[in-house]
């Protein structure tokens, strides 16, 4: 019998109060509730404070490169479709250096879950402006204020053809856990962004601020997360307020369903081909 602690490898050393703690405990609960065996999970993380998550968690972990989290994770899943594959990025990792992969993963729709920890700042490198930092945000990299309009990752995901798009808040770990759970059950690429305060470097986007600007679409009985046009509008429905909850979901075949002929994971195929099979193909060269 698996216990919740079976997913805990070691205590995190994030700053006290960091939003990542909320995600960590929510995520352990998800794995526990889904009864995924630790060895059947592979968690791929990028470089940043978020990137430490898998070294605290008990599962196969891969701390990869800044911005390359998704290509690696997709490779893992395609090589072994029986694994639960989860990738974890920060807002810099996902929306800045890794943005091209982000969009292409959404359209490719490999069956995996992508958690983007959005603290609206570069945490590990000591607090520079990120693509989700607000206009005129002052940081060591933009001492006179950022002059670039922030990105709304989820709206981008919608335009890119994402099949599961949700947002949670590390200050609301229960909803967060249920969103990640739904994402992991989704057959295809599921995106869960987590609003997550960086208590050390971001003095603007605090727990309080997030609490005051979010509204929960899960609680809105009129909201229909299968309606793409509604999903689009939700981002501007309440001015600058941020929707959380399940924003959009659609059913479409995953990439591997369509591309991978065999059922057995590639990683465990018998590599010696049937006698004469390759020879037969080589006849074309004669």
């Amino acid at each position, binding site marked *: 019998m698996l216990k919740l602690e079976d997913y805990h490898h070691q205590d995190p050393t994030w700053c006290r109060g960091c939003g990542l703690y909320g995600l960590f405990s929510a995520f352990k609960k998800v794995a526990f509730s889904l009864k995924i065996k630790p060895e059947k999970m592979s968690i791929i993380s990028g470089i940043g404070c978020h990137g430490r998550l898998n070294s605290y968690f008990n*599962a196969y972990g891969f701390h990869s490169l800044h911005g390359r989290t998704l290509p690696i994770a997709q490779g893992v899943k395609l090589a072994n479709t029986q694994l639960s594959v989860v990738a974890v990025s920060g807002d810099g990792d996902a929306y800045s250096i890794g943005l091209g992969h982000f969009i*292409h993963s959404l359209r490719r729709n490999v069956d995996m879950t992508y958690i983007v920890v959005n603290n609206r700042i570069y945490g590990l490198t000591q607090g520079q402006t990120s693509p989700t930092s607000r206009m005129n945000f002052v940081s060591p990299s933009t001492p006179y204020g950022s002059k670039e309009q922030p990105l709304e990752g989820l709206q981008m995901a919608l335009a890119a053809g994402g099949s599961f798009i949700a947002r949670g808040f590390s200050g609301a770990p229960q909803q967060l856990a249920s969103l990640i759970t739904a994402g992991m059950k989704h057959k295809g690429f599921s995106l869960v962004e987590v609003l997550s305060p960086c208590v050390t470097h971001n003095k603007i986007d605090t727990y309080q601020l997030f609490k005051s600007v979010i509204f929960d679409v899960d609680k809105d009985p009129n909201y229909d997360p299968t309606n793409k046009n509604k999903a689009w509008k939700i981002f501007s429905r309440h001015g600058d307020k941020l929707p959380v909850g399940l924003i959009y979901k659609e059913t479409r075949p995953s990439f591997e369903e369509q591309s991978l002929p065999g059922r057995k994971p590639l990683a465990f195929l018998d590599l010696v081909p049937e006698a004469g099979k390759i020879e037969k193909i080589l006849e074309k060269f004669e």
Partner: protein
Amino acid sequence: MIKDISVMIAGQAGDGVLFTGNVLAKILKKEGWEVATYRYFPSNIRGEPTHYIIRASQKKIFGLGNEIDVLLSFDCESIIKYTKLIAQGGVVLCDGEELSRLKPTHKKGKAFHKFPLKILAKKHFKNDIFKNMIALGALCYILDLNFRLIERIIINAFLKRKGKEIVRMNIDAVNLGCEQARLIVEPSERHKLVKKMDTGKMFISGDEAIAVGALAAGCRFFAAYPICPATEIWQWLALHFPEFNGIVVQTEDELAAINMALGASYAGTRAMTSTSGPGGSLMMESYGLSGMAEIPIVIVDVQRVGPSTGMPTKTEQSDLNQWIYGSHGEFPRIILSPGTVTECFDFTAKAFDLADKYQVPVVLLTEQDVGQNSRTAKKFDLSKIKIDRGKLLSEEELKNNKDYKRYAFTSNGISPRSLPSMKNGIHMVEGNEHDEKGYRDEDPENRIRMMQKRMGKLSGSAKDMIPPKLWGDKQATVGIIGFGSTLGPIVEAIEELGDLNIRAKNLQIRTVWPFPVETVRDFIRSCEFVFVVDNNYSGQLHDLIHSQVKPEAGMQKILNYSSVAFRPSDISTQIKRAVRDA
């Protein structure tokens, strides 16, 4: 009796030069000749000169000869450009008006004929596309080739897709070409080839051979981004992988390609990516991740002319330095360099075993000249391939392991691997410096041991590496060192030097990294003269030998950075001069 012949087909991009040449090459191969081809084409869409050389020989050949015996051209530009290359007794057919521009001295001893291909095609078939078949007919006449073969090729190519009528018209066009040539070309100008038996050889390019090698070695994951001249590898795999349950992914860029392959390999699948120069440069960061995280991967670089976008369809050997020294920091790597299409196959298969055994990136470094040009080769020996996945643990072996360490310090630095999904095998894979379990560790003592572990993995590896190969007379004191596609011209240069009574030998470096220091040192010591052949500007192999072997004696560089492949005489004349002048 003709023992060796080179035919050039020339024209503008869009003229069907490639198609015509390919058919001719196939016929010659079926006639039992050794065939090597050379495609010279612009990285443009239309309207720049292009040519295709088909060389046939009774002996084993790997590349171009020095001269052209028969030249057929769809325009006149190429004729003027390449007159110097035409052999004495050579014959030229040209569809164009400008032959008159040639000086009589250039024409001496060579036969030039105007041959109105387009007019004939339009007149007889109402479509100038038939010029290619007319050209083939003419060539068949000059070379005295078997018409049955060409008919069979036409039937194979067109019957299913286009129907009987088209087949008939094509055959008619061939016959027309033959007849017209008979009218124009003097019997004495013909280059009649003897017929031999088709020995069942293959006619295959290096790119295709690499793809076959990967398939045979159990590669089942391939991710790449399109780029000349490497895309052919992918295209062959895309066709054939599904039958073997493998997958080919077209990624958004080269960064994704290599990382996806790394992910697949980490999860247990043999994985490969292929690219050329610019893509290789983009892969540098992840190349280092492979080394640091000890994830096997095979990377193919089909080199083209650099730097930057350079000349995408031309050949060069100028990425050697990047693969040896590129990426920040230091990690072990293996770089193999095949000289023939057969070696493309063999080395690719071997690359996977080496990657698995040493848990390092293995680069298969080849060139456009080998990659895109087809050559005859003995049928690949698939039975030779024994897949050895190295220290890959089974779930069984892990059963009693309560303290599995992914990066365990071992006597040879190689740590047994577990794969995701295996019980008791859980670990971290890390690009940061890490401890034996894979967790980030910044302790200097651990750092030192981990560097020694990783860098030490290849110290005892010589026995597993593909050793340098000696060509020519062991006793010779003129030594040539080269790698990759320069093999052909070097070997023929040795023959040419032999004719001049200069005995030479060649050491073909086949594993360029780790560098085979001892063998090269011994080779150098056994020579009076050493020449290092590099298809690049700075003499990258030459400098590498200096930094690794630290030879007592000097060596001379033979360089080529012209974008055209070496010809044997480029090498033999430089050596002759140096040796005679000494």
